């Protein structure tokens, strides 16, 4: 017998009273209304789209794509912003605008990889801990989570990244390691409150297996906070990545990374201000875009008015 989330269930009377994921698309009109009610969310969406498109099509969008790699042109070094170089050139003569566009790539890749690696285990652990709340599984999982959360995130990432070789892969590992606990905590709270709802109890009473309950009953109801958090987290992961590259951990030159560009450029302040200000503004833009869009997603997924 089909339950409302669209899957087969073994329990004949399983009544899933929750709002299933598939309704997101049926309600697309209303969801879009909720999202677009706030013009800032639209701005965020536009910014995010611009960034994603720039990253994907970087070689075609950047005016000087070869300058994003190993390239020197000392004659042109330190040019202020002009029509040929929208953000000026850096100390090695490379076009800063092109480098920024390519840096978006590294940033987005980092965000995607980190979240892809951190979210599933985090969610899984949180679901399990939340469902078996009160048992030893709960205690073990949550105490371990507490340990990772005991240190402010960036500090742990810095520490891990510093003991390993500085490169993009290790930076991603470091950030992943301190990112998963947030999802565990989120899911723990959500799952442990949902598991007391009637539809879960009904499923249990009719003999549904634990696996089914966790993945077919509880998880679909946790999806909105997860997606909201993911949308917001992209910005934060990129920020941590920028912080890491600011101190020299993470992506190594000559591949451009935003944090590293800011830190390199800072040495040439105030005369060559563009070398640091434009990469810095790029970081702000990314964060702004994902924050605004994330807020819009939250408005959309939350069961509010309307």
């Amino acid at each position, binding site marked *: 017998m089909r339950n409302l989330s669209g899957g087969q269930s073994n329990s004949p009377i399983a009544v899933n009273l929750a709002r299933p994921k598939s309704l997101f698309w049926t309600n697309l009109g209303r969801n879009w209304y909720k999202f677009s009610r706030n013009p800032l969310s639209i701005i965020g969406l536009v910014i995010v789209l611009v960034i994603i498109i720039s990253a994907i099509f970087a070689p075609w969008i950047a005016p000087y794509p070869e300058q994003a790699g190993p390239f020197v042109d000392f004659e042109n070094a330190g040019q202020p912003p002009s029509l040929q170089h929208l953000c000026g050139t850096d100390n090695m003569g490379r076009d800063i605008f092109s480098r920024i566009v390519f840096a978006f790539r590294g940033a987005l890749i980092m965000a995607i990889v980190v979240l892809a690696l951190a979210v599933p285990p985090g969610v899984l652990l949180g679901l399990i801990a939340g469902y078996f709340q009160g048992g030893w599984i709960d205690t073990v999982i949550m*105490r371990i989570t507490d340990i990772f959360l005991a240190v*402010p995130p960036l500090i*742990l990432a810095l520490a891990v990244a510093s003991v*390993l070789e500085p490169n993009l892969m290790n930076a991603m590992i470091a950030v992943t390691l301190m990112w998963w606990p947030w999802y565990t905590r989120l899911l723990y709270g959500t799952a442990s409150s949902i598991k007391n709802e009637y539809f879960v109890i009904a499923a249990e009473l009719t003999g549904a297996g634990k696996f089914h309950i966790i993945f077919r009953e509880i998880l679909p109801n946790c999806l909105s906070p997860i997606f909201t958090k993911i949308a917001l987290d992209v910005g934060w992961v990129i920020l941590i990545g920028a912080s890491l590259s600011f*101190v020299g951990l993470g992506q190594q030159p000559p591949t451009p990374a935003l944090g590293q560009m800011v830190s390199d450029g*800072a040495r040439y*302040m105030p005369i060559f201000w563009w070398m*640091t200000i434009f990469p810095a503004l790029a*970081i702000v833009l990314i964060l702004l875009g994902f924050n605004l869009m994330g807020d819009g997603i939250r408005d959309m997924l939350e069961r509010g008015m309307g």
Partner: protein
Amino acid sequence: MKLGSFLLRRFLLSIFVIIGLSIVIFIIARVVPGDPARMALGPRAPEDVVQTLRQEMHLDKPLPEQYFYWIKGVFRGDFGHSLVSKRPVLEDIKEYFPATMELAIFAGILMAIFAILLGVLAAQHKDTWVDGLIRVSSYFGVAIPAFVAAIIFMLLFGYYWPILPVLGRLSPGMTPPRTITGLLTLDSLIEGNFPAFWDAFKHMILPAVALSLGGLFQEARITRSSMVDNMHKDFLAAERGYGIPEKIVMFKYLLKPSLISTVSIMGLDFASLLSNAFLVELIFNWPGISRYGISAMLHKDLDAISAVIIVFGVVFLVVNVIVDVIVALLDPRIRLGTARDM
């Protein structure tokens, strides 16, 4: 009183977490390929000296044993030696820790005060230009990372508009006060040394503002939304209906329940404050433990790195406990146990 047992439970939990943290740190530190003894002595030291050091550092023993030696040392206050400063790490920590604490506390206070002010303002003038302005500012405030703000401040105040100092804690030529607490502002006040106080205070302003920006606006938004949520609650309508004046309803009966969410998030925001301190201290050349930590990390100074992380872990834990206590004070339901049923 239940508050006591609540605190006790949190305390025990914290101990457990710190122990776990120390294990994790230890594992991380030992993961580094390379030979700590050789790194300490340099590539030109003779092999037998290095071997002696290896034995002293218990590097030949199995990992769990190494951990116990290390923990024993930590309890005695011996965090090992720094490769960079060549001193016991404990000395380094004692020297740099107060500077960071001073900055963090000041930034934390700034954050709390302005967050509540702005949040209340935004909620009271909901949907007007005031609310809109605060909302837009908060989007930018949250999107501007502390180190970017720090760099912009450097640019603005370091060169174009030098009304505030941008480097270090005290201007050269200014006599520092006696070290009582290590907090320059406090110490100079205690001594009555007002010029030093004012100088130290001015030095703190820019880094503290840069640090507090993100958290400030985020808390302001939470305060606002918490107030807006509570505005629609029945008890407010009831209180209004009984004739209690609007001002009292807003500032007493609306504010207190709304602050609960704000204070809850202050713990997390303090964490990001501490994190951001790493980069901000670097930029402003603030001689704090974060700058020391970064230097340790870049030089793979393992003992120092581990010590710094433990210190931050402990500080963060203490702050969280304090925040939990304040929340318990605000919300009697937490303090006095759960509700009695009908």
